C-alpha cells in the first residue's frame, strides 16, 4: 500500500491543510491593527473555546463523564491546581466505570 502515490497525495494535502490552519490565524492577524476591540476578541478566545470543547464533550457523554468533568473542575478550582484536578477527574471516571460495570 506504501507504493500507491494517491496515499502520499492524501497525506500531503492533509498536512498542508492542517498547517495552514495552525499558522493561518497568526499570519492573518498580522494584517489587523490591534485595537482594544480586537484585543477583547482575542482575549475572550480561551474562555470561549474551552467552553466549546467541554460542551461538545458533555453533549455525547454519559453520567459518569459528566461527574468526571465536575470532579476535575471542582478539585482544580477549590482544592489543588490543574494537575490535581485532572487526576481527580480521571480517577473519578475510572472508579465510577469499575463500580457501574
Amino acid at each position, binding site marked *: 500500500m*506504501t507504493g500507491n502515490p494517491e*496515499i502520499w*497525495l*492524501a*497525506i500531503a*494535502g*492533509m*498536512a498542508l*491543510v*492542517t*498547517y495552514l*490552519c*495552525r*499558522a493561518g*490565524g*497568526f499570519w492573518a*492577524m*498580522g494584517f489587523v491593527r*490591534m485595537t*482594544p476591540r480586537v*484585543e*477583547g*476578541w*482575542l*482575549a*475572550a*478566545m*480561551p*474562555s*470561549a*473555546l*474551552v*467552553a*466549546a*470543547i*467541554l*460542551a*461538545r*464533550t458533555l*453533549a*455525547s*457523554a454519559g453520567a459518569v*463523564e459528566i461527574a*468526571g*468533568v465536575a470532579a*476535575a*473542575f471542582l478539585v*482544580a*478550582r477549590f482544592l489543588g*491546581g*490543574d494537575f490535581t*484536578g*485532572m*487526576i481527580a477527574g*480521571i*480517577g473519578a*471516571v*475510572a472508579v465510577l*466505570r*469499575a463500580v457501574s460495570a
Partner: protein
Amino acid sequence: MHDQPRAPATAFTWRGIEAGVAAAVPLAANSAVGGVIFGALAAQAGLDLAVSAAMSALVYAGGAQVASLQIWANPIPLLAVWATTFAVNSRYILQSASLRPWLAEGGTARTYGTLFTLSDGGWALALKRWQTETVDGGFLLGIGIAQYAAWIGGTLAGHALGNRIGSPAAYGLDFIFPAFFAAMAASLWKKRSDIGPVAVGAGAALAAHLFVAGHWSLLIGGLAGSLVGVFAHDRKS
C-alpha cells in the same frame, strides 16, 4: 481596559523549552494514548506502518487523522479527506489568531516552526502561563516537542499492537483530554467578563453539534463566544 497586557518583546529561550517539556507530562500522556488508538485504527484500516507513521509525523492532528480513517477507501476520496481535515482542524485558526499579540515579536522562523506543533492543550497551557510568567515562545515549543514525540511513539506502538490494544476506557485513559480541559476551565473562568464568552461559546457549540455537523462545533462555538469580548469592550467604554 486591557484584559490582556500586550507583551513587550517575546522571549524564546532554552529554559522556556525545558519548562514546556516538563509542564507537558499530562498532555504527552494524552498524546501517547491517542497515538496508540490512532495506530491501532490505522493498522485495522490496512495502512502500513510507514504510511501511518508518516501521517502522524506530517499531519500531527489526532482528530483529523481518526476522522479521515473513517472515510478512507480505495480509491481515496481526496477532496472529502481534505475537507474533513479542514473541518476538524479549523479551530486552530482561532487559536493561532489569539497567539498573535503574544508571539508577534518572537521571530518569524521560530514562531512559524512552533506553530506546526500547536495543540489544543499546549495552546491553553501556554496562554494560562503567560498571564503570570514571562512570555516565552519556547514554552509553547517545548510542549509541542513533548507531545509530538509521544504522538509518534504512540502511533508506532499502536500499529504494532493492532487489534490487541484492549480498552483504554477501562482505566479512564480516554478521559485525560476532557479532564485536562475541565481543570483548565477552573483556572481560566475567573472573571465576571468570562461569563458571556463561556455561555455563548458553549451554547453555540452545542447548537452546532446538534444541527450543523459535529466537526464545525468548535469553530462556531469559539468564534461566537469570543465575539462577546468585542462587545464587552464596547459596553465598558
